């Protein structure tokens, strides 16, 4: 088995480490970082736009470059989450929770270095796992039907509660807004349209990216203006590599040494499962970290572990998503679906036979991901002083640039003005949410997960003739159902036990 891995990898390296391979890998990784930097301009759009650029290349080199854009954008996407509290993608929403407070505390440098390290760690662990486990994991993914998906998404939805902030009541309202917006589009059962008002742009539903950019980006800006931040002179943040302030402290690494591993493992598993792998992975990674921490109250206020966990997870997930893509031809996300389209364009037939028929391609791609992650960590650390300079610019000058980026990002989704209006409306809602302590993260994630939950639930309902027996008659579903029940039961039990002992402490938690 080990001999197989070594021979496969050396075959792959012979393709990926060729001068041409390396050149396009660097281009792909760099473009990916840039693509990630623009809010709303996610990897799916980035790959789609750049496909025509690869027409002159050989298939393997072209896919190596496109895959570089894919995982490179995961590095870049967090930079805006940290610096301007605007996640470019649903997978980096969780990174805003502690990343942005870190930047506000003046620790933008360490936060950016740490996210690069976490991304590298997650990405590399992910590729190692692909190399070792690809064949057996593919079978695992193949055993996932609608009932299993629903249960996994339900676990993700429960995890939402850990990122709602202190006020759970407002958190639930935020999530409900997300669910409500998620109902727009075509009804999965009948094909009838819901709340589309006959507009063809709405048939596909409200795309979460425009909502996310509005809620976070525009909402944050308006809130800063309300606080008069634009009137204050810019803080001079002098950052250079020689500066001690730039690097994460020994304590940062020490505290999050296990977080790297946990985040990567959770992310990889979530990534292997088709669906919203990286998003679920980052949410579950974050909440597990918060749950097991001895000091959960630090999370959400600029805790390094709260940034490392989702970052290691979403990068490991982007590697994990390559497993079903390469071994079964199953895309797990929008970006991998576009990659799959590129496979077809290059005459590569995705499916179980791909690795048999085109081993140079599959192993070349896997080997290029090792090199790609190394290139990306170097690129991101060298570019950090440049990104941090951004914070030196007076806020008055930053505002128009961010608005412009947000509007372009929203318009670019479908080249239609509809998304721009969604952005404007979400911006106003995001402003109100920020001002009154609601949770935009819960809204965006509920929007993403809610419609998936509805679909998979209804599929299970139809298949089981309304009896729902699939949830306990299918082995994998049964295990997931038990996990779900445990997650619900434990807090209830704990609360019950506490209540029975000291009667005085029965104060209403919602009243805070």
């Amino acid at each position, binding site marked *: 088995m080990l001999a197989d891995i070594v021979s496969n990898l050396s075959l792959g390296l012979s393709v990926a480490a060729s001068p041409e391979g390396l050149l396009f890998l660097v281009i792909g990784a760099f473009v990916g970082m840039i693509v990630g930097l623009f809010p709303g301009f996610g990897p799916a759009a980035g790959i789609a736009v750049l496909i025509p650029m690869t027409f002159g290349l050989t298939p393997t080199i072209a896919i190596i470059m496109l895959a570089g854009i894919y995982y490179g954008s995961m590095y870049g996407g967090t930079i805006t989450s940290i610096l301007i509290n605007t996640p470019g993608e649903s997978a980096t929403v969780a990174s805003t929770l502690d990343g942005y407070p870190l930047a506000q505390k003046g620790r933008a440098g360490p936060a950016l270095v740490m996210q690069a390290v976490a991304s590298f760690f997650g990405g590399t662990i992910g590729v190692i796992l692909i190399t070792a486990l690809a064949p057996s994991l593919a079978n695992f993914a193949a055993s996932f039907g609608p009932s299993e998906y629903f249960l996994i998404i339900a676990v993700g939805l429960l995890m939402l509660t850990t990122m709602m902030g202190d006020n759970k009541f407002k958190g639930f309202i935020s999530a409900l807004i997300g669910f409500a917006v998620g109902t727009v589009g075509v009804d999965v059962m*009948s*094909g009838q349209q819901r709340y589309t008002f006959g507009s063809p742009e709405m048939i596909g539903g409200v795309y979460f990216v425009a909502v996310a950019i509005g809620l976070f980006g525009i909402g944050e800006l308006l809130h800063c203006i309300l606080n008069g931040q634009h009137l204050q002179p810019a803080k001079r943040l002098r950052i250079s590599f020689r500066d001690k302030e730039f690097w994460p402290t020994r304590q940062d690494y020490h505290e999050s040494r296990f977080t790297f591993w946990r985040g990567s493992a959770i992310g990889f598993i979530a990534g292997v499962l088709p669906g919203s792998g990286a998003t679920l992975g980052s949410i579950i990674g974050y909440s597990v970290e918060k749950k097991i921490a001895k000091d959960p109250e630090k999370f959400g206020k600029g805790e390094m572990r709260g940034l490392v966990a989702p970052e290691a997870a979403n990068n490991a997930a982007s590697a994990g998503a390559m497993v079903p893509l390469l071994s079964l031809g199953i895309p797990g996300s929008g970006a991998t679906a576009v990659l799959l389209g590129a496979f077809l364009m290059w005459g590569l037939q995705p499916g179980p036979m791909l690795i048999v028929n085109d081993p140079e391609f599959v192993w070349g791609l896997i080997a290029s991901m090792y090199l790609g992650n190394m290139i990306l960590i170097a690129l991101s650390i060298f570019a950090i002083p440049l990104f941090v300079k951004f914070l030196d610019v007076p806020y008055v000058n930053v505002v128009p640039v961010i608005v412009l980026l947000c509007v372009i990002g929203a318009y670019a989704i479908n080249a239609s003005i509809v998304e721009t209006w969604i952005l404007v409306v979400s911006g106003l809602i995001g402003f109100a949410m920020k001002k009154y302590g609601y949770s935009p993260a819960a809204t965006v994630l509920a929007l993403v997960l809610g419609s998936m939950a509805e679909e998979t639930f209804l599929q299970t309902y139809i298949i089981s003739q309304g009896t729902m027996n699939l949830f306990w008659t299918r082995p994998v579903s049964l295990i997931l159902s038990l996990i779900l029940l445990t997650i619900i039961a434990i807090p209830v039990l704990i609360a019950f036990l506490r209540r029975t002992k000291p009667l005085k402490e029965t104060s209403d938690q919602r009243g805070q």
Partner: protein
Amino acid sequence: MIKRRTFTTLAVTAALSLAAAPVFAENYPSERLTYTIAFGPGGGNDRMSRTVVDILKKYELYPGNIVVENREGGSGAVGFSFVKNKAGDPYAATSTSGNFIGTPLVSDTDWTYADFTPIGLLASDAMFLIVRSDSDFGSIENFVEAAKAGRVTIAGSGSAGPERVTASLFAQAADIEYEYVPIGSGGELVTALTSGSVDAVVANPSEVAGQIEAGTFTALAFSDSARSTNHPDIPTFQELGYDFSFSLPRGVVLPPELDPAVQDWWVATLQKVVETPEWQEYLVTNGMSGNPIWGEEFGAYLADTSTKYEAVLKDIGAIN
């Protein structure tokens, strides 16, 4: 200047080949062609359009420059509307696919298939009825028997897409009851079957060709009126005694209100395109069947497909 010379020769040959060509056709085509793709890069419609344009350029079949542009949005509504509004402009073209029929039926668009000038159906995108190879359904008769004895579930992508239309037409023809399970994307559709959640799926050949080749899935029947040129061993529903056919048009259309000579020029040109090895390779890679039909016959095919589609959508309650 090579381009200019080929342009003259081709224009002359074109004019000569059309005996009764009106004056207009003598200098057609003489301008830049804008080929609009109503969907994003990398998708099925995009791949087909770019293949056609590449062949036109490589064999110098179009004597001038061709600009390709993606105008995506609203499931094709935006791009097709753009081409439709170029009525009378012989220098615009676009490719059809399932949404060309489906989108106007389910939403409020300013165009339908009937507005365009039909050129040709270059390939048809029909559906397979697929079961797991290790399931009890060795043949379509077994499947129909099982459906009559108990209950079968058939999954397909989307609630009101071509997969559902195919499943519904099959159920009518075989006189069986079935439960349709709409599944979001191609990937989840495959795992719905591999995980044993559903009994069968209706899927586009390109989505399942890898699984068929690997022996995991077995195709029971094909929904086109003729066997697939890629999978000649798989019988059509009609051959098996279920009298229906349904496929989606992968074809080329031009804006409305064109000179018939322009239509003829394009029919003749695209007939050359489908003969090239590049086109044959495209058909194989993308799992499409190549039984082309041309001109007004293509128009009639579009009308027939739209009627079937509309009837099923009404039947399942997706539209009124």
